[in-house]
């Protein structure tokens, strides 16, 4: 895992002026990983569970971000991919006794295929029309999961109970800690992969399509293929998050994967910062903790307070947390000249 940041540092062909900033970034990233590794030994197990959930939502948001932030396609249907991932894991474990670690790649693969196939017809649709198509997907999935003839697999409206994985016997940790580390590992791998994807030729093609589809096509980028592929990869990320979610919660039910989840992911995406990979984790934090904060202020008006917090955040940081951090960094005079050279992942 720790290999990723090093690679990340090498990737952009850095001008000398960029170096100090990369070192800072290095330090921050390294520090964050160390803290993440130590946390499970100091926090209560339910806090560990919450943090696991934060990472899972962060990963799902990253999936959405790949599609929306980097490719400019809009989706209200990511709850569906999250649900497919969760159900793939749950069904494989519950009905076929597949070990949990195999369900993650299985969920990813399933969602990649579904996402890719969904991306094909979605090619013809843009903006709001695409939003409607994905929205249809979000509405349809709970209904399909409840659908009577499929009950033999899905458990219908009653849902499926998933056994939580036991930690490997040679490690002196409990289930929550194990799930935490498992999730952390998966998240780091997938974040690294996303970083590499974005900074590769493919990534540039994907972003070119976002910025100017016509020019991109003119330059010989196969827009259809890349858009469908992006859809597939995006679904893969969210699907793996769903599978991890099923393991963490140990239960899946159709109504967990409704439009509301899609909306939450979207909120997390915007709050974290569209087009920012670390921003996704911040989005995950927001999705998990802000409803709790809202509720602790007033139970009766929990929804309204959530809305007000959301508005305040949007007012203060209209570009999301990532944009806000960039803005703050930009204001620091010492770093100003450094800042101008960085492309980052953000338009």
């Amino acid at each position, binding site marked *: 895992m720790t290999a990723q940041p090093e690679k990340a540092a090498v990737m952009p062909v850095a001008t000398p002026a960029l170096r100090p900033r990369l070192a800072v970034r290095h330090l921050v990233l390294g520090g964050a990983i160390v803290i993440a590794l130590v946390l499970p030994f100091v926090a209560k197990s339910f806090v560990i569970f919450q943090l696991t959930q934060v990472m899972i939502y962060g990963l799902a948001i990253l999936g959405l971000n790949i599609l*929306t932030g980097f490719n400019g396609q809009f989706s209200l249907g990511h709850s569906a991919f999250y649900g497919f991932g969760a159900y793939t894991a749950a069904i494989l474990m519950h009905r076929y006794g597949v070990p949990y670690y195999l369900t993650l790649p299985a969920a990813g693969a399933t969602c990649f295929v579904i996402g890719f196939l969904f991306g094909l*017809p979605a090619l*013809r*649709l*843009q903006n*709001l*029309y695409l*939003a*409607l*198509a994905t*929205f*249809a997907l979000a*509405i*349809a999935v709970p*209904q*399909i999961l*409840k*659908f*009577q003839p499929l009950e033999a697999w899905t458990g219908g409206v009653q849902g499926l109970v998933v056994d939580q994985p036991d930690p490997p016997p040679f490690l002196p940790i409990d289930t929550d800690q194990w799930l935490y580390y498992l999730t952390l590992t998966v998240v780091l791998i997938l974040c690294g992969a996303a970083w590499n994807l974005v900074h590769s030729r493919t990534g540039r093609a994907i972003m070119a399509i976002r910025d*100017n589809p*016509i*020019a991109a096509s003119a330059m010989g980028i196969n827009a259809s293929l890349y858009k469908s592929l992006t859809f597939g990869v995006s679904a893969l990320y969210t699907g793996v998050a769903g599978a991890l979610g099923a393991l963490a919660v140990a239960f899946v039910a159709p109504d967990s994967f409704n439009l509301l989840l899609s*909306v939450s992911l*979207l*909120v997390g*995406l*915007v*709050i974290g910062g*569209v087009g920012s990979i670390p921003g996704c984790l911040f989005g995950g934090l927001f999705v998990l903790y802000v409803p709790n904060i809202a509720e602790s202020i007033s139970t*009766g*008006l*929990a*929804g*309204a*307070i*959530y*809305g*007000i917090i*959301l*508005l305040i955040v*949007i*007012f203060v940081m*209209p*570009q*999301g947390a990532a944009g806000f951090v960039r803005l703050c960094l930009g204001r620091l005079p010492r770093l100003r000249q450094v800042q101008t050279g960085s492309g980052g992942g953000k338009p």
Partner: protein
Amino acid sequence: MELLLHQVMAGLATGAIYACMALAVVMIYQAIDHLNFAQGEMAMFSTFIAWQLMVWGLPYWLAFILTVAVSFIGGVLIERVLFRPIHNAPILSNLVAFIALFSILNSGAGYIWDFTIKTFPTPFGTKPLFAGALIDGHEAGMIGVTLGMLGLLYLFFRGTRLGLAMRAAAANPESARLVGIRVGWMTALGWGMAASIGAVAGMLIAPVVFLEPNMMLGGLLYGFAGAVLGGLTSPAGAVAGGFAVGVIENVAGTFIPYFGRELKLTIALVLIVAVLMFRPSGLFGRREVSRV
């Protein structure tokens, strides 16, 4: 055959709800170039205001007019206070602001007026339109008012200077500003009108679905679908789309064996998406051509 007729009529009646919402959705889309996800909740809140006024003893029509006026002011205020400051932020940030507004209005209404359903009066009566008719007075009235609003809007946008200015402001803010149109106020005006149309829609829908904080949720979802199906650039298309969604949903739910009942919503949505494959700008929408 009789069943088909019944289902089509029932579909038209629910379709009128969607058409109302779709019209409001398209209205605000015309004015601000965004879909307002809080539209349904704004309509619901307006309807509660009307209900409260009537509880305080005002007659229906007075409450109706007051509510439309209050909603107009409310819409303008929301634009000025909440959306003006972030109008330069990315579309997605605006979208999140809509979600926030949704949450605030929904939760606020539940807090003020409770969640138990309330009846809302109708000026059209609920007797069948004529002996043996398949739709009742209110449903007919709802369809009539929706079409009436559509006509008025058409005249407003095509026939008045203000309407033209609003269209210009939404279509091309920069050029509109250059010819002296106060684009900011046009947007605010658009919000006000959309809120008023929403209020009328809410007051027409409430007698059918009962008044409660979540009453517009379904209506908005289908209204949204209807608007997109009909074409977001065409108010008439949106109304037609709304009716179409109502009919498709009912007929598909009744006549597609095996899957139909449980998956009727899914089937309706799949059909809509399929239609959009062939008409990517909706049935009546203009194809957007962008300049490179």
